């Protein structure tokens, strides 16, 4: 009877999921309600977790509940700490949840709601969750070794080096692109700039509290911090209303870029307890709170989706950035469906805290499902805006024109009606001077979130407060990624520089800290500046580059996972990791090729450089703009080189892996697994 009831429940879940998905895919007559998105995503996630992850756990990985994990064998109370699975799920989710799943789907909404939503769900279930789960398992079996170490031991020495370089490359591009998102969110906005600037003194106060007054009392300090942040969000409107103060906090894109570069340098070089850690605590609470609030808001308000299933930009002429659905939609969504970066967390802290191998299913597969759900909610928030407003916010001036009237005319001609007074009124309602040309995803997501929040609590009166709360939340945790990333990047540069001159490898030596911080900040700062001054908006070039780097890292992780499965004798189930690898490699390679060689100057960077060079040669560029144009040409060629190097690295790694696989399949080499030896657990078995 119990079995029958279970089967009935799962059948209902399956039918509900299929029905909701069919509604999303085929409904064309009237605005679709966001509830369908929530039902479709939730039901498919439940089914995938119940059946697909169980299949991977039992058949593909054969998780062994009797085997002691590193947390049990090496328990040292610091790095290796046995941790309850629900607590670890919270830790892991807080670590993997970043700005990517919010920004990526918002940008991908330019193709319509359908391609992005489908990839968010399918990509996560078959790709991203599998990657996180399998890499977590591999690392647990190897005493918590990192992805780079596993690549070196299981694939080849060169594979390890490629993983290391890929991590550094993705870090540089990631930090530049998220910095650009913040710049575009704060540009000419005294309210948002003031709020974000005030998070620094709030962070410093929390740092001193946690270091000297009440060491380690994270919840107390965070409660104080959150209260102060809510106050500064509200206080921002008074600053924006005062002409003299508003002038102080109204910054241009270039000024903001330099401020962020300086902040990144300071956060990397200063003691971690002073600024980085307290802001990280603050950001984690606000992040989880805002995500829960967004989920609750969508369920309460049940907004109508205004965006069509497909827009005219499926032809590759998108204003946010150019390119067709394949490969660019997959590159754009990146983190919400598959994120290579997660492999670093799955092979970092998490495997050292897991008490039973079977918990890897909940933590690895489950946390990524939650992340994908965040992506679906971001998609809903972006698509709840009318398409005209969405494109007005996200299109760069170089495409739609500088003035509100020009932008409104261009966008209306595309078939998405919007007029200048509407945009002006909306900007006034959210307390901004303008919402035009704010490429990057953060402002349009904030408008979408603010509409959902204000329909839940406060009505139109609170729209501006909610908008600035959303901007603060996005910018705060983007800056957390930026400072934590810069610091780790600095360590990586110190390790690499140590090969050249040993003293540089000393992590606590101040000359080395300053030099290596300057190197890493200089690297991402350069790309950030390049993005800020790019007339096409910067996002057009940098976001695809970031997506390519991220998906490349995911491909590295999946190649390592496939090699390990092959060595474990799981040839029959090899498609579980091989299929997403093949998809990611084809999407990444196609995107890289198009980004470098496409004849359309909006897609191919070399074509763009050539157009500029021929204009320069023909004397069509005014004398004042010549140095800027020369720099722009150089930047495009640099982007081509970076993309080519990334693509080349994955090709080398694949060749190395194919050679390994051939050796194993042809029985020319005996597969050697570098697993830690089996030790029986002394603990009661986990569930």
């Amino acid at each position, binding site marked *: 009877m119990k079995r029958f009831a279970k089967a009935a429940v799962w059948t209902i879940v399956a039918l509900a999921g299929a029905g909701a998905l069919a509604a999303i895919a085929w409904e064309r007559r009237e605005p679709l309600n966001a509830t369908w998105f929530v039902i479709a995503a939730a039901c498919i996630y439940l089914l995938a977790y119940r059946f697909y992850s169980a299949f991977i756990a039992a058949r593909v990985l054969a998780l062994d509940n009797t085997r002691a994990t590193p947390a049990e064998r*090496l*328990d*040292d*109370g*610091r*790095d290796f*700490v046995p*941790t*309850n699975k*629900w*607590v670890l799920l*919270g*830790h892991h989710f*807080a*670590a*993997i*949840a*970043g*700005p*990517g799943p919010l920004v990526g789907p918002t940008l991908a909404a330019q193709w319509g709601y359908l391609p992005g939503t489908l990839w968010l769900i399918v990509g996560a279930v078959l790709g991203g969750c599998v990657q996180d789960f399998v890499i977590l398992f591999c690392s647990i079996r190897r005493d918590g070794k*990192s992805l780079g170490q596993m690549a070196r031991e299981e694939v080849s020495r060169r594979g390890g080096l490629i993983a290391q370089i890929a*991590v550094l490359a993705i870090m540089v591009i*990631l930090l530049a692109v*998220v910095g650009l998102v913040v710049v575009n969110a704060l540009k000419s906005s005294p309210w948002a700039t003031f709020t974000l600037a005030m998070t620094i003194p709030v962070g410093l106060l929390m740092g001193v509290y*946690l*270091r000297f007054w009440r*060491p*380690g*009392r*994270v*919840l107390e300090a*965070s409660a104080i911090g959150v209260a102060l942040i809510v106050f500064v969000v509200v206080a921002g409107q008074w600053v924006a209303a005062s002409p003299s103060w508003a002038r102080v906090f109204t910054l241009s894109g270039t000024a903001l870029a330099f401020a962020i570069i300086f902040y990144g340098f300071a956060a990397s070089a200063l003691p*971690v*307890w002073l600024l*980085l*850690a307290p802001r*990280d*605590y603050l950001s*984690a*609470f606000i992040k989880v709170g805002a995500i829960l609030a967004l989920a609750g808001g969508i369920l309460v308000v049940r907004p109508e989706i205004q965006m069509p299933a497909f827009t005219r930009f499926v032809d590759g002429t998108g204003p946010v950035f150019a390119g067709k659905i394949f490969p660019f939609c997959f590159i754009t969504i*990146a*983190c919400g469906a598959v*994120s290579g*970066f*997660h492999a*670093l*967390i799955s092979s*970092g*802290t998490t495997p050292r805290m897991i008490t039973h191998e079977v918990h890897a299913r909940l933590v690895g597969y489950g946390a990524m499902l939650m992340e994908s759900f965040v992506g679906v909610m971001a998609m809903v928030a972006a698509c709840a805006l009318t398409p005209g407003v969405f494109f007005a916010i996200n299109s760069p001036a170089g495409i739609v024109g500088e003035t509100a009237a020009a932008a409104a005319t261009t966008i209306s001609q595309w078939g998405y009606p919007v007029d200048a007074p509407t945009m002006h009124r909306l900007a006034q309602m959210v307390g901004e001077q303008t919402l035009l040309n704010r490429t990057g995803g953060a402002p349009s997501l904030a408008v979408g979130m603010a509409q959902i929040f204000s329909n839940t609590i406060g009505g139109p009166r609170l729209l501006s407060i909610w908008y600035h709360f959303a901007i603060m939340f996005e910018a705060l945790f983007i800056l*957390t*990624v930026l400072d*934590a*990333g810069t*610091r*780790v990047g600095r*360590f990586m540069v110190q390790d690499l520089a140590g090969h050249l001159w040993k003293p540089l490898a000393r*992590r606590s030596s101040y000359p080395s800290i300053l030099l290596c911080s300057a190197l890493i900040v200089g690297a991402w700062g350069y790309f950030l500046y390049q993005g800020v001054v790019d007339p096409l908006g910067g996002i057009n070039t940098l976001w695809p580059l*970031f997506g390519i780097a*991220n998906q490349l890292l995911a491909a590295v992780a999946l190649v390592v996972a496939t090699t390990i499965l092959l060595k474990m004798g799981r040839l029959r189930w090899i498609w579980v990791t091989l299929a997403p690898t093949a998809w990611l490699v084809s999407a990444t390679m196609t995107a890289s090729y198009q980004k470098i060689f496409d004849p359309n100057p909006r897609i191919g960077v070399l074509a763009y450089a050539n157009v500029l060079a021929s204009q320069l040669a023909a004397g069509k560029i005014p004398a004042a703009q010549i140095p800027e144009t020369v720099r722009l040409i150089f930047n495009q060629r640099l982007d081509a080189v970076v993309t080519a190097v990334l693509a080349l690295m994955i090709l080398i790694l694949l060749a190395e892996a194919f050679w390994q696989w051939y050796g194993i399949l042809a029985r020319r080499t005996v597969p050697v697994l570098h697993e830690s030896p089996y030790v029986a657990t002394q603990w009661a078995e986990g569930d």
Partner: protein
Amino acid sequence: MRRTAWMHVRSALTKTWWWLRQTSGDAAYEIYLRGEARHHFHSSNWSGSPVLSRKEFYLDALRRKYSRVSRCC
């Protein structure tokens, strides 16, 4: 009947509070102390180093946490 419902609520609140303290890092020092006590008596993993104070442990934990990738995109 009402009392049972209240007990359920109280238990849920206690569990949520416990989860929040564990996940946020608020309870990290207590976990460390429990681990140290366990190692003293039962384990060969104990390094023999003196037990850290709350402040020392906090700084040590931060140093370790931010030495590797701790936040994602």
